[in-house]
Structure formats: C-alpha cells, structure tokens
C-alpha cells in the first residue's frame, strides 16, 4: 500500500512531440492518497489507460516522475513496483487450471507453497469458482475468466496498488454489480490503494471515494461524486456526469448580471471573467424549475423515464433539458426559473469561482 505521487507527468506516443497536441497525456501533477479508491473517468481515448499504464510501469512517461511513498519509481519495472493490474479483456493462462492461474503470480515471486494454498483458496471462494479449482481455465465463460483475472490481481496482498482497466466490460450487468460490491468490500477490508478506469459514470461514482475526470489528455476535475455533480469545474464534467448532462447556455456577463438572449438573471456573486473569454452559464436539469413564472421556454418533447420526466425544450434559441418529478405538470405557457445556488459560470470552458 502506498501513496502515489505523479509529478509533472506527460506522455507522447510519438518520438519527438512538437506541440501540445502530440501528447496523449498532458501534464498530470497530483497526489493519490494511500488506501484511496479512485476512479479514472472519461471518454475513450482521453488518456485514462495511458495514465494507468504509466502508474503500473508498463509505459515509461516521456516526462515527469512517479513516487510511491516518496520513493522515485519512474525507472523501475512493473515487477519492482509491485503493482497488480486487471485488464479490460480477460487474460488467462489457458493450459493451467483455475487454481494454478491464481497461484501463478505468487509462485513467480517464490511465495511458500502453504501460503500460496491459503491465499488461492481464499480468493477462489471469494470469486465463487470453488468447484472449478482443478479444471483447466480454457472452458470457462468470459465472466468466469475475468473473475480469474481479477483474482490474480487480488491474490497478492502486499501490492502497492491495484489498478483496474475497465475490468467489468465483458461481465453481465447483474454480475457487474456483485463484483463491484465485492471490490468495495475488499477495499474496506484491506485498504489497498485502488485505481479504477472506466467510461461508465455509474461505475465510477459508486466505486470511488474520489473521481478523477479526464478529457482530451488532461485531468479536468478530481472530486467526490457530490462535487462533480454540484460544482463541475469544467463544462465537460457538467456534460459527462449526470443524465442528462448539464445545460450550457451562452451568456453575457456584466458585473453580477447574466444576460441569456433577451432575459437577464441576477447572480449572488460577481464572476471575474477576462475580457474576450467565451462565457457560459451552466445549470443542471434537476435545478431548472418549470412553472408559470420566469423566462419563456418552448417545450419540444416530454420523455417519461419512469421515476421522472425529462422535458426537452428550447430556451433562448438553445436546447435545454429539464427534469420534472413523475407527477410534475407541464403548463401550457411554460416558463422556467433557475435555482440561483445551482448556477455555475464558465469562462472558456473552465468554471469561474463564486468566491472570486
């Protein structure tokens, strides 16, 4: 178990990166606490896996240093770093039995056989493959194979961190939930530092204490699920987290007044916005109130998704989503108001603080 420091890490897959755009991973500088459960969340190709492989040592960063508990491990191999990693698609040694598969990482490290036996049996019970121990791994289903991959990561109890690279992609939805809770349980029990890569926000938000949102090769926000929901620090976070995502409306800001088309809203703070910056107002669909007072809005469509209704409308020429409770009414001459405390202001996609 270790605290992980990433110091000014950058990575480019090409030989000589010329511009910022050549970097698959733009500068990352961050400390990950010992025993924390982190989720790396972002769309495909945003650099999540690159960052993960840099931590595990499968990839050498082009620039920067990695420290485990203050020791520089940048040049150390994966084995020397003592990291476990689980990959997106199951990797099994299909000529070995299930038992030998799980024992493999331990035997490679010359762990005494009695200890191997104890730990392997523990893991086999945990992943529920007790009856398969003596069978070859070849005939198993995809999710059984992935459980073995997970098990090989978990069987080593002295690791500095366990990294998961979208490990539940191939698993059935109901098993996903079960495995995720087992991982959480293990995390609480042993306090591994865990880093979990995913593009599924539900998975990220339920698994992690801290979610690291990545976009276009950089970390745009690190925060608890609540922080990501209430105060997205980048328009991408607003749009990516939540279903539907945050409404973003082009806005003109003068002092503490925001002009949205012909309407104006008074803010309870004056955002400091540099001249010439592209300014936007962000409001989550959950905080838009639909009623008979406020600003004009044209309703296009109402989607009933069971527990709530999503109203698709047009506001000041832009599409806007509004979440209504299941019994909420849509008035004929609909108008909207925004919950003032839930308004976020963005300048060039980055959030402008309330405190400013």
């Amino acid at each position, binding site marked *: 178990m270790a605290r992980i420091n990433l110091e000014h890490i950058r990575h480019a897959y090409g030989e000589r990166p010329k511009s910022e755009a050549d970097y698959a991973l733009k500068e990352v500088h961050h400390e990950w606490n010992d025993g924390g459960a982190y989720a790396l969340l972002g769309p495909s190709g945003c650099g999540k896996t690159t960052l993960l*492989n840099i931590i*595990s040592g*499968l990839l050498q960063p082009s620039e920067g240093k990695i420290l485990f508990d203050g020791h520089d491990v940048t040049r150390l*191999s*994966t*084995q020397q770093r003592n*990291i*476990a*990693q689980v*990959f*997106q*698609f199951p*990797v099994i*040694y*299909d*000529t*070995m039995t299930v038992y030998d598969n799980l024992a*493999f*990482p331990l035997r*490679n*490290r010359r762990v005494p056989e009695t200890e191997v036996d104890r730990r392997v049996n523990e893991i086999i019970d945990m992943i529920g493959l007790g009856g398969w121990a003596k069978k*070859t791994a*070849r005939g198993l289903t995809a999710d059984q194979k992935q459980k073995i*991959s997970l098990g*090989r*990561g978990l069987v080593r109890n002295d690791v500095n961190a366990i990294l998961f690279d979208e490990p539940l992609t191939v698993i059935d939805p109901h098993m996903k939930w079960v495995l995720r809770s087992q991982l959480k349980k293990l995390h609480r029990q042993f306090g591994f530092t865990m880093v979990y890569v995913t593009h599924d926000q539900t998975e990220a938000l339920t698994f992690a204490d801290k979610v690291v949102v990545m976009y276009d090769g950089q970390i745009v926000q690190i925060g608890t699920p609540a922080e990501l929901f209430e105060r997205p620090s980048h328009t991408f976070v607003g749009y990516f987290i939540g279903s539907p995502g945050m409404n973003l409306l082009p806005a003109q800001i003068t002092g503490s007044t925001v002009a949205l088309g012909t309407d104006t809203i008074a803010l309870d703070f004056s955002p400091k916005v540099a001249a010439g910056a592209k300014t936007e107002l962000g409001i989550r669909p959950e905080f838009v109130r639909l009623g008979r007072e406020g600003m004009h809005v044209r309703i296009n469509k109402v989607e009933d998704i069971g527990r709530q209704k999503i109203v698709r409308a047009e506001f000041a020429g832009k599409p806007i989503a509004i979440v209504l409770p299941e019994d909420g009414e849509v008035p004929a001459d609909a108008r909207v108001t925004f919950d003032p405390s839930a308004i976020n202001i963005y300048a060039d996609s980055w959030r402008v603080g309330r405190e400013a």
Partner: protein
Amino acid sequence: MEKTWNNKAWFMVLPVLLLVAFSAVIPLMTVVNYSVQDTFGNNQFFWAGTDWFTEILHSDRFWQALGRNLLFSAIILSIEIPLGILIALNMPKKGIGVPVCLVLMALPLLIPWNVVGTIWQVFGRVDIGLLGFTLKALGFDYNYVNDVFDAWVTLIVMDVWHWTSLVVLLCYAGLVSIPEAYYQAAKIDGASRWAVFRYIQLPKMKRVLLIAFLLRFMDSFMIYTEPFVVTGGGPGNSTTFLSIDLVKMAIGQFDLGPAAAMSLIYFLIILLLSWIFYTVMTSSDEQA
C-alpha cells in the same frame, strides 16, 4: 413449410466426386491393379496375388531405404521445429523489419525443388562450389560425392535451409495473434521469460506447430527431387530413400509389379504415421 426429403443432394457432390475419382481414386486403383499382377510387356498380365508385397516386405533394400527415410525425417524435424520456433520468437513484431523478414523467410519456399537441389549441388562442389571449395581450402575433407556422412550433412543442411521458413512463418502467425494484454499481464504477474514462452506463447503456437510438424514429416518422408539432383541416391545407396528406390525400380528396372506394391506400402506407412501423430497430438490437446 414442409421439408422435402429426397436424394437430389447427391447430385451436388457429383462434380467433386468425379474430380477426386480422376485425380486420386482411378490412378490409385491402377497401381493396385499393377501390384497384384505380373507383366512382360505387350499388355499381357498374369495374376500374381500378394507375391510382390511379400517380396518387398522381405527385401533388405526396402527396409534399409525405409530406415534412411525415418532417420532423415527424425533429424530434420528435430532441427527445423526448434529452430523455427526460435527464429519466429526473435522476428520483429512491428516496423519495417516485419516485411523484410517475411520476404526473406518466404524466399526459399518460392524456389522450385529441383532448382534448390541444383543450387546445393553446385554450392557444395569442391571444384567450383563456394561452400565445397571454401571448406576444402579451410582444410576440411569435405566431399558429398564420395563421403556418406558429408552427403547426409549436405542434404540435411539443404532441407533445413529450404523448409525451416515454413515452420517460422506458421509459428510467427501464431505469435502475432497473441494480444498485447497477455504480455502485460505476464509482466504484472512477474512471469519469467521462460514462463511467458511456456504458458503464453507455446500454447498459442500449439495448433500451428501441429500443422508444421505434420507437413514437414510428410514432406520429408516423401523427399525425392533434392537428393535425386544432389546425390542421385549415393554414394552407394547411402542416400537412396524410398522414393528414389521406387523410381529406380519402376522406371529404371521397369519392375512394375514390385514397384506398385512398394508404392502402396509406402503410401500406407505415410498415412499410418500421419494418423498416429495427429491422434496423439490432438488428444494431448484435449486433455490439457
């Protein structure tokens, strides 16, 4: 809809049946026909029963040739298979090296067999051949025309040069199909280079290796052109393999009956050995 049951489907296989009949069954039956009869020309045949088979199976000449064949196959398999794996493991996986290596590997396979024989026949000559002349100049007493050992070494080296590529290409195809994640996982699991080979690469190559093994066995067991061109079966009878002996008997001596009987025995041996290898190898595959 009601399914109609009739035998029309048989007409569909008729073209293939005809093709196989003319290409395999009819020639084979002609051989069978010769093997049980005696002839003195003029299309006059006399029933000979199993006489020729008995004669062949009791001749030292046959058993010696068979022994040479088995020895030759055993030697070239034990060189070509490990060497092929070794080369395949060290071939580049990406970049400009891949096409370069693949073309280099494919070259020997593209050369007609009698040309391969001629190349080595000239290459090994002590008067004008680069290899023979050099060896002689270095003081080695090398002469594949007179020396049994030298003749065998020449044929084996030639076969290895000619056919190891096939094993390499098949193994390489097996190796490149292994996803990168397997190697990454092996690193994470702390696997040694040997463990990676034993538990990841070898299992993935197993099927192609089986094919390589069978192809090389059958081909080497039927070898004719190259030794015929290089040594002509000599010195003495030391490189007279079954195929060479067969041709001598059939075309040289015009003993059609014994030659036909020998062809059939030869054919059955290859069939039997291939079947044994195949069964043994695939059953071990299932157990694993």
